[in-house]
């Protein structure tokens, strides 16, 4: 579970880097779409694993929080994939993804 949430933090941080380059017009559309799809699929996979793993009742809350984070991260990545020419959205996604990466890291450390 800990590794799964760390993985979410990693994906979010990496997606933030991608969003930063996208916001500055320093990337290629195909790269954003393909690599974004890999990261988005990985987020979904991690969320499914968190959902399916049997956990103690006291861990239910953080797990739900992590699954929510996974959905947010995946959503932001998918936004970038759908409209990679939208730099303004990418700038906003970058800020959100950095924030979620920090949140996921704190969540993993707290477990």
């Amino acid at each position, binding site marked *: 579970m800990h*590794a799964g949430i760390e993985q979410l933090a*990693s994906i979010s941080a*990496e997606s933030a880097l991608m969003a930063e*380059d996208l916001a500055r017009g320093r990337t290629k559309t*195909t*790269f954003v779409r*393909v*690599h974004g799809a*890999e990261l988005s699929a990985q987020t979904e996979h991690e969320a499914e694993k968190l959902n399916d793993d049997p956990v103690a009742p006291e861990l239910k809350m953080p797990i739900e929080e992590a699954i929510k984070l996974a959905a947010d991260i995946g959503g932001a990545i998918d936004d970038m994939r759908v409209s990679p020419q939208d730099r303004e959205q990418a700038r906003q996604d970058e800020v959100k993804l950095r924030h979620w990466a920090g949140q996921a890291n704190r969540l993993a450390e707290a477990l």
Partner: protein
Amino acid sequence: MKKVFQVALGIIAAIGGFVDIGELVFNTQAGAVYRYQLLWAVPVGVIGIVVFAEMTGRVATVSGRPVFDVVRMRMGLNVGLVTLVASLLINLITLAAEVGGAAIVLQLLFDVNVSTLILVAVIGLVLIVYFVPFGGIERIFGYLGCALLVYVAAAVHLKPDWHHVSQGLIPSWHSSALYAYFVVGVIGAALVPYEVYFYSSGAIEDRWTVRDLSLNRANAVLGFTLGGILSIALIVVAGEVFFAPKVQPGYLGTTALGAQHAYGEAGLLLALLGMLFAVGGAAVECAFSGAYTLAQFAGWEWGKYRRPREAPRFTLAWMIFFALAFVVVETGVDPVLLTEYAVILSVVALPLTYLPVLLIARDRTFMGERANGLLASTFGWLYFAILLVVSLAAIPLMLATDGGAG
């Protein structure tokens, strides 16, 4: 002048040909997780491949015996068969990883369905290998693989703390299984056996004579050492871009992102181009290595310098290797995961091919005055000891860390 030019071209091809998917994956992960702390493992691996390649090149040139000729002769049929089967399996896994890697890079460039691109990659590679002569193949992939030098530029451009970088080159130890796993991975990624089988058979393909021994030494020492700089650059770039935000690289796209972060779209395109030709070249070397090992062990006619109908079983063997790799990758297995298995299993099997080469390189019956001298013997045996330790540790570490997952 012509000789200097020839040496320079060989070295450039060796630099571009040094990096394969193993380096792209392990070095990026090592830099992201441990920043510069694993840099020292690169020279350890690079010196190892220099020692091994120089010996195999010299043995092939002087005695006319490539690696699996030596394995069969020195280890005999039974131990030789075990070595052959292990090598063929590892070659196949590595080839599948490289073909899958090439397809992923093509997908990052063109956003087309990956299954189609696997087919395109395999057909493209088979056509190049079939129609282009041996020297041309080395040059196409070696020179275009040099686009990866963008990582060297990026490593400088990202302005790392050079004091910390230099400290990373001093061997250090952490009592952590994950750290030890990455040490094995970084060393193993540099010491891939298929490159050596290819190199020694290449010496015979290129019809080297004792007059080419200086070329052999230059190619091995300068080519692999300069290639090692690419590995160091990959670690430094990953350390600069991915360490602070705690990114755990699990895709080839992550490696490309490092170059993009330094140089934008141009950096990304150069990185992807370099990766495409580096993994494509490695795929060719793997397929050839599989065919070389099989043909040399069984005594069949072999060589790209022969027309296909003059070495038919060799020709069919490399084609079948590509076909098998295609089937493996089309199952949907993750090429990055395959790479990790390939590198770790290569390390485990390496002493089986290293030892017979070391033994014949010191045998004056076959090598005459070109047998290992004091320096080559010392390095040869030192690296045999290192290889034994690394090969014994590899599987337990892979299990203990769940393949580097922590």
